[in-house]
């Protein structure tokens, strides 16, 4: 068994397919490539591959991570060369590297992510200040729990860092958010807090969200 990961971007209209669609896309690409994946044992064997973090439908990703196990050993670069031509428009594999064989999966290690949220100036208005926003000790939003009941949640502890930048007609928010199995903050909820804070409606379809990077526990680097 040989473990690898791919780093790829998902941009353009392909962002409108879900992460499960993307997983199936990779399974099929591996089948076409002839790179044999390791299958799980049991009644319903499935190939061992998965994302470090699922990316929501509609978001673009600049450095998404897919980890997988192959039956034979490959040179990582060779795999990138084989797989890239099999990718549709919008998916670009930037690198492929071997992963140390032992230890937890990247999905288990992922704990944070860097997002860029872009909102047209006229939508967010002029008075949003990240310093004031972060100065709040509580940023409460409403969220449905697993029982589908609305609960109030303070998201402030899950925001690690947040900066603003104005780029022509767009207001960009760069933010590090918890993104892992123990604590996870969806940018949707952050947006809801921004709506509460600014008192502006900010329709979802006016907002563009890009995930730029995924972080791992204890500053683990891949």
């Amino acid at each position, binding site marked *: 068994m040989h473990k690898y990961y791919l780093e790829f971007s998902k941009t353009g209209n392909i962002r*409108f*397919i879900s992460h499960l669609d993307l997983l199936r896309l990779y399974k*099929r690409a591996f*089948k076409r490539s002839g790179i044999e994946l390791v*299958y799980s044992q049991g*009644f319903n064997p499935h190939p061992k591959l998965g994302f470090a973090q699922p990316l929501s439908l509609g978001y673009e990703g600049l450095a998404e991570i897919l980890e997988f196990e192959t039956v034979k050993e490959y040179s990582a670069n060779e795999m990138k060369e084989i797989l890239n031509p099999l990718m549709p428009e*919008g998916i670009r594999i930037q690198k492929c590297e071997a992963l140390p064989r032992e230890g937890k999966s990247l999905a288990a290690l992922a704990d944070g992510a860097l997002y860029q949220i872009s909102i047209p100036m006229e939508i967010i208005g002029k008075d949003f200040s990240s310093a004031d926003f972060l100065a709040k000790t509580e940023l409460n939003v409403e969220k449905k729990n697993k029982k589908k009941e609305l609960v109030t949640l303070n998201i402030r502890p899950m925001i690690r860092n947040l900066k603003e930048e104005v780029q022509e007609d767009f207001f960009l928010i760069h933010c590090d958010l918890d993104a892992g199995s123990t604590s996870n903050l969806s940018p949707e909820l952050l947006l809801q807090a921004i709506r509460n804070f600014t008192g502006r409606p900010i329709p979802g*379809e006016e907002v563009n969200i890009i995930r730029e990077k995924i972080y791992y526990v204890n500053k683990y680097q891949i």
Partner: protein
Amino acid sequence: MNLLKKIEPLLKKIEKPGRYIGGELNSVLKDPQSVHTRFGFAFPDSYEIGMSFLGLQILYGAMNQEDGIYCERVFAPATDMEAMMREEEIPLFTLETKTPVRELDFIGFTLQYEMSYTNILNMLDLGGIPLYANLRTQEDPFVVAGGPCAFNPEPLADFFDIFMIGDGEELIVELCRRHGEWKKTGRTKEEFLKSIACLPGIYIPAFYTPVYGADGTLQKIEKNWEGTPDSIQKAIIPKLEDAFFPEKTIVPFIEVVHDRSVVETFRGCTRGCRFCQAGMIYRPVRERSKEKIENLAKELLLNSGHEELTLLSLSTSDYSRFEELATDLMGMCKEQNVSLSLPSLRLDNFSFQVLQEIQGYKKSGLTFAPEAGSQRLRNVINKNITEADIFGSVEKALELGWNSIKLYFMIGLPTETKEDLDGIVDIAKKIMDLNYQIRGRKGGRFNVTVSVSNFVPKPHTPFQWFPQNSASEFMEKHYYLKDRLKGVRGVTFHYHHAETSIIEAVLARGDRRLSALLQEAWSLGCRFDGWSEHFRYPLWEKAFDNTGLSMDFYAARTRSYGEILPWDHIDSAVTKEFLIRENEEALKEALTPDCRLGCTACGVNQRVLCEMEGVHA
């Protein structure tokens, strides 16, 4: 014009935006300027249903392998997308290049089921194309159609310029080639229609006018132009082996109904079930060679990366080298971690071996389609399956560990009585008893699902003269069965909406006056009528009222052999004499054998070689 910039903002607001983005693996991009003919292949239902349809992949491939033709896809937008397109004034567009459909040369609808007809009108309207053919101008595209429902095109006749009857993969390419030639001449659209009117399989409805008598029945079908044929012969591909079949199929990004590689093993069926339209109109049986099927399977899997392979035909195990084929494919699939699924198997010893092998521990349910509850009624419909067959197979299945059996029946079949309905209940009970006998009272989880559908008499079948049950008769029968099956532990009962079946029957055997009905139903808001959550019967009732048409006239009336039927000028190559003879045999409860045992003189061998005629005689 490319509408992408206008479509993009909508994609964030709607469900399943992946339906509208295009760009899937093996979809085709061409420079539209480089071709003489642009064809929009329109499936009048959702993307997920349309993309599971093999005919789309065949015709898309057949057209796009020609340099001069560009075929793109068009689907019915879901209701959320439709609302937004109307609000933003975005016309219906092709998936590949986001071109408004009215800029194409052809928009071609596939007619797979009657309940999609209102979607056709809705799509034309969304495309900004006048619904009625006679209101369209020289600048509008030709609106064309094909598929099984084109064998009675009359209810849609006012909306279409051209129907293609029969096998489409060669005819559609020929149509486009001739269109390219016509385009160079600069002649009128009518002249184009005249130039193709005599091609086998082409029907130009504008060249015919139906004349009705005082009782509402057809008196004659008048020709408006000398040059048009008296009857329209269906197009037949004599040898399937040489016909185009795609080695690369479009692989959707999003999950669709069937996401798998499909090889058509043969077309047609020799069994002659009397209710079955497909069994009549796809005659004769034509097979692909085993080698070709295996090669296609290999290529399709390689080019798609699919994890499932299946075979398509009307009765899978009738393929003449089925055992060898199934054995080979099982080996190939196992090697490649691909699952093989074989629908509509006849359950003999070999099939059980195959099913054991391909399903292993995750056994899906076993399905039987006795169609009728008694041997008498099965003889009427010529469904050659006995209770001994069913119970023998069930016993075997129980021994091998299957836990679920599905049974399909039809109700409202000709000559049906209460005894036939009781027969349905008896079969279900006996299967439960068999389970107790073989596995004991506490033999574990086991269930039987009984599904009944409502019989819809179809054109070009021996039952085309037969009246359909009324909605209330169907409902009474549903309650009768529900009541009796309620007491049988382990049995689940499903039945179809009666009112949907009535509308389906009206449209199936309708005449040209129904164009007005369809237009009315659509303008009242009918869409996606095949979806129970969208079907609105009161609107259909209102459409009948507003147009002065009678549901019963079309669905519940007995036609005489002498009556001119709206589809009589469409020649399926099966003769009317054969259909009459089969109907008479049905009333005598007499079986007609499979034509592999000897020709039954349906007439198709007068047009084309019948490969299977008497091969087991």
